[in-house]
């Protein structure tokens, strides 16, 4: 293969197994003697536990065991702090992590109280009905502001308030800048992000093998190495005794990270106790309560500007719903705080947030991970400023873009990777230009007026964003030439559909002169690769991809060295292609990679001191900080002014994520992200009552967008290399989902002429019914 595959739309290696029903997902793991777990979960958000009686359940034929918190003995303890708070001066962080089974108190609907183990899942669920439970319900903390008011019920009494964390970060001096402003725009915004809702729910299978002293755990996790290390510690085993396998995982989007969910912690423990394999698969109802959410923030934000629309500074104070426990630290609100700044020059920034404990499911990152909230605030403030100052919406953005010669651009405040926020590279204006061109911005006003004359209501939206991607600490990869001449790659990250089996193969294929289809990739099996962090923050391709590249380069070097010894020629005279090494200009003089791999593992004879066997290398890559991708989304909608039915007529994404490995896979990531963004903006709302009950916990009521709601997305790309890694790439996994909220708000306001009618859209999600409420008293 002399053709370079890097940068080409190579079809995916993983497809065959998925298309023929042969890919192993968690619920496909079947083991002899396997038992099944089911969980009795709290049906109320906040309550004292008086009594739990499982005796009736234990009498049911087929029930093997039932456990409450006290049965766990020393194994019962709060879970680990997964992400510590960043090093920010004056930070307040009250660590309260989730427990395996609720003891004394329940803190959210769905928190597990009892684990039942039975011969089948059907019997285990039957037995849940046999459990007698007495709770005394307490007032629930649901509303963020009420939760902070005096006399509010406390999620954790010992904290003394419902403050999970408080962070204040500044850049420059906002107060001094605001004094000089010609105009100050001040609004209150509410942004709610929903649930990731992958089509495959979570699951765990744990198998303790008493004879081998070995624990194997199949887990729908994005971070198997962390799960292995954590569980080994909890179970009192050496890490080598624990193997965690993340098989094919049916979508993750964040919440399948290493949460040490109660089920993840409990199943291995029970498996050891009973010396039987145990399976638990989350059902869809459980998923709504037992898998982490990403919910809401309330922002009181103001922007100070000059008369000509230049941003002097931004002040923002916001509340962030953290849920009942805070094991994931501050990643989500820190992302909101940092991403708010976007692609714009903001000389002065003063941002403070309070993360609030509530009696609801935990909040952890979901695709975008708080970035949406920040982008919404910034983009809306710019829209209102543009209106106030009578400047075109796109022009006010253009005037504030960070100029191309200002990189690396320092935003100073601390980002989720604990580094001062610094944009590595970018060239923003061409991205905006391409998007305006593609959406037909210039011609639109005429189009809109013509449509209005026919009684049709069209509106246009434009939103910009940057995305911090590809953060450290590191990933690694082992690349190996097999004696059959094929190449094998193992890496420690998990995979949930991102195309890792193909993009990593492309990287190695180019270095080692083999076909992409001859590169076999293993991800997410801790016995195949020992170290790693995981798949999150749009980092798989950037961090693990670069590790694959480094390892492949070393293997290439070893291959050439061995062949040069064999042919007694210089390495420069050799060429690697089509699975063999040959002498330049003498193609008949060659040795296959497989033969070389065999020779690299000799059976007899002495080797030179320091010789490593095999054509193999393990390398690690860690970037100094995250690479910053950017983009612009543009959309034209048609609204029915009576029903508020919305139709997307055109959707454009122009995006810069540096050097592209596989444009087909990249496009898929963007399209899928946009679909989730559309869901967030207009269809998906977690509807809670004031007692913390989720009122729409089914897919019939919580509306994921279907093929009828998601339009065709036109994509454009620009390329600005990242200087932070040798391949020059940036992450792209979350980009599609991030700026969709402000895009909807802007386009709907435009279509329904809401500015003139005195209505501003200050919240997400919107929906037909919400638009009806917001506009019913507005003049026509």
């Amino acid at each position: 293969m002399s053709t370079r595959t890097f940068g080409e739309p190579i079809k995916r290696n993983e497809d065959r197994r998925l298309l023929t029903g042969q890919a192993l997902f968690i619920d496909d793991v079947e083991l002899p003697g396997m038992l099944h777990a089911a969980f009795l979960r709290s049906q109320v958000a906040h309550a004292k536990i008086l009594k739990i009686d499982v005796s009736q359940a234990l009498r049911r034929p087929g029930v093997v065991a039932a456990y409450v918190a006290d049965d766990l003995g020393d194994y019962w303890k709060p879970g680990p702090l997964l992400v510590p708070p960043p090093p920010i001066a004056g930070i307040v962080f009250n660590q309260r992590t989730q427990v395996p089974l609720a003891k004394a108190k329940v803190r959210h609907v769905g928190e597990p109280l009892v684990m039942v183990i039975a011969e089948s899942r059907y019997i285990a669920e039957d037995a849940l009905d046999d459990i007698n439970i007495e709770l005394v319900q307490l007032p629930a903390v649901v509303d963020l502001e009420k939760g902070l008011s005096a006399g509010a019920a406390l999620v954790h009494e010992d904290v003394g308030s419902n403050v999970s964390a408080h962070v204040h970060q500044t850049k420059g001096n906002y107060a001094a800048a605001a004094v000089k402003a010609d105009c100050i725009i001040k609004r209150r915004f509410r942004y709610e992000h929903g649930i990731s809702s992958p089509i495959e729910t979570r699951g765990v299978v744990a198998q303790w093998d008493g004879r081998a002293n070995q624990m194997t755990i199949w887990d729908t996790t994005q971070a198997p190495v962390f799960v292995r290390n954590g569980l080994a510690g909890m179970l009192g085993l050496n890490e080598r005794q624990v193997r965690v396998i993340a098989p094919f995982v049916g979508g993750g989007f964040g919440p399948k990270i290493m949460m040490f969910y109660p089920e993840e912690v409990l199943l291995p423990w029970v498996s050891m106790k009973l010396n039987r394999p145990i399976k638990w698969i989350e059902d869809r109802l459980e998923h709504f309560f037992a898998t982490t959410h990403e919910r809401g923030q309330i922002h009181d934000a103001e922007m100070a500007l000059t008369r000509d629309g230049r941003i002097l500074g931004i002040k923002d104070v916001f509340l962030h719903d953290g849920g009942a426990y805070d094991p994931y630290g501050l990643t989500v609100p820190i992302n909101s705080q940092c991403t708010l700044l976007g692609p714009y020059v903001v000389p002065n920034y003063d941002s403070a947030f309070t993360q609030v404990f509530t009696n609801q499911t935990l909040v952890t990152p979901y695709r975008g991970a708080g970035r949406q909230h920040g982008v919404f605030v910034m983009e809306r403030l710019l829209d209102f400023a543009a209106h106030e100052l009578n400047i075109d919406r796109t022009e006010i953005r253009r005037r504030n873009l960070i100029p191309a010669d200002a990189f690396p651009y320092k935003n100073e405040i601390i980002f989720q990777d604990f580094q001062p926020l610094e944009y590595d590279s970018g060239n923003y204006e061409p991205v905006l230009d391409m998007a305006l061109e593609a959406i037909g911005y210039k011609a639109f006003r005429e189009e809109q007026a013509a449509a209005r004359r026919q009684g049709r209501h069209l509106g246009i939206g434009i939103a910009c964003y940057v995305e911090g991607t590809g953060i450290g600490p590191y990933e690694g990869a082992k690349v190996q030439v097999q004696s059959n001449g094929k190449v094998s790659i193992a890496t420690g990250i998990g995979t949930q559909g991102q195309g890792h089996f193909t993009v990593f193969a492309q990287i190695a294929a180019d270095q080692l002169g083999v076909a992409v289809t001859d590169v076999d990739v293993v991800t997410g099996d801790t016995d195949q690769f020992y170290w790693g962090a995981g798949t999150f923050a749009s980092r798989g391709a950037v961090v693990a991809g670069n590790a694959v590249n480094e390892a492949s380069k070393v293997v290439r070097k070893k291959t050439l060295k061995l062949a040069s010894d064999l042919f007694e020629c210089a390495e420069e005279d050799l060429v690697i292609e089509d699975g063999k090494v040959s002498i330049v200009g003498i193609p008949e003089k060659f040795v296959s990679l497989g033969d070389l791999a065999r020779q690299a593992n000799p059976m007899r004879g002495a080797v030179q001191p320091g010789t490593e066997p095999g054509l193999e290398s393990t390398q690690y890559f860690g970037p100094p900080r995250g690479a910053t991708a950017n983009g612009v989304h543009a959309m034209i909608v048609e609204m029915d002014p009576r029903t508020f039915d919305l139709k997307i007529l055109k959707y454009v994404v122009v995006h810069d994520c540096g050097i592209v490995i596989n444009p087909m896979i990249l496009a898929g990531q963007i399209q899928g992200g946009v679909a989730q963004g559309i869901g967030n903006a207009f269809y998906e709302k977690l509807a809670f009552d004031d007692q913390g009950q989720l009122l729409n916990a089914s897919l019939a009521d919580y509306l994921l967008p279907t093929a009828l709601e998601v339009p065709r997305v036109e994509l454009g790309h620009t390329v600005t290399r990242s200087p932070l890694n040798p391949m020059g790439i940036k992450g792209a996994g979350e980009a599609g989902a991030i700026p969709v909220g402000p895009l909807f708000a802007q386009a709907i306001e435009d279509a329904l002429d809401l500015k003139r009618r005195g209505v501003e859209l200050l919240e997400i999600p919107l929906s037909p019914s919400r638009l009806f409420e917001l506009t019913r008293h507005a003049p026509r």
Partner: protein
Amino acid sequence: MDTDDHEMTVTVNGVNFQRRVESRTLLSDFLRHDLGLAGTHVGCEHGVCGACTILLDGEPVRSCLMFAVQAESREISTVEGLAGIDGEYHPLQQAMHDHHGLQCGYCTPGILMTMTAFLEENLSPSEEQVREALSGNLCRCTGYQNIVDAVISAAKRMRG
């Protein structure tokens, strides 16, 4: 509690099976766990997501909304039966591969079954018709566009 078991016979992908099943066993569980045909996936167990779609006597149905015993003497097709004996793809499988119509692949078996049945009825569908037919299957990864393109392309290829 005594279970209410039944002997049943069913044909799946042309193979005849006789099994004893509890009356409340869902067809999806029966296929996956009793017959080991785990290619049929379960996403919601309330008939919304479409991942568990199979063909029952040629008609797409949601196997999570049926009991196994209701399939007595019926013919079922699942994703495992789509490709040829020597592994060659059904035109829709090929088109899904060519158009990058899948990412995590979890919803894919249900989509393949729904849309192969659709193509049996309509080999010249418009994009709107494809989207309408696809709208009962949820996919959280792809944004659907590539699936739509794959179905249209498969139709073209099947028309010959």
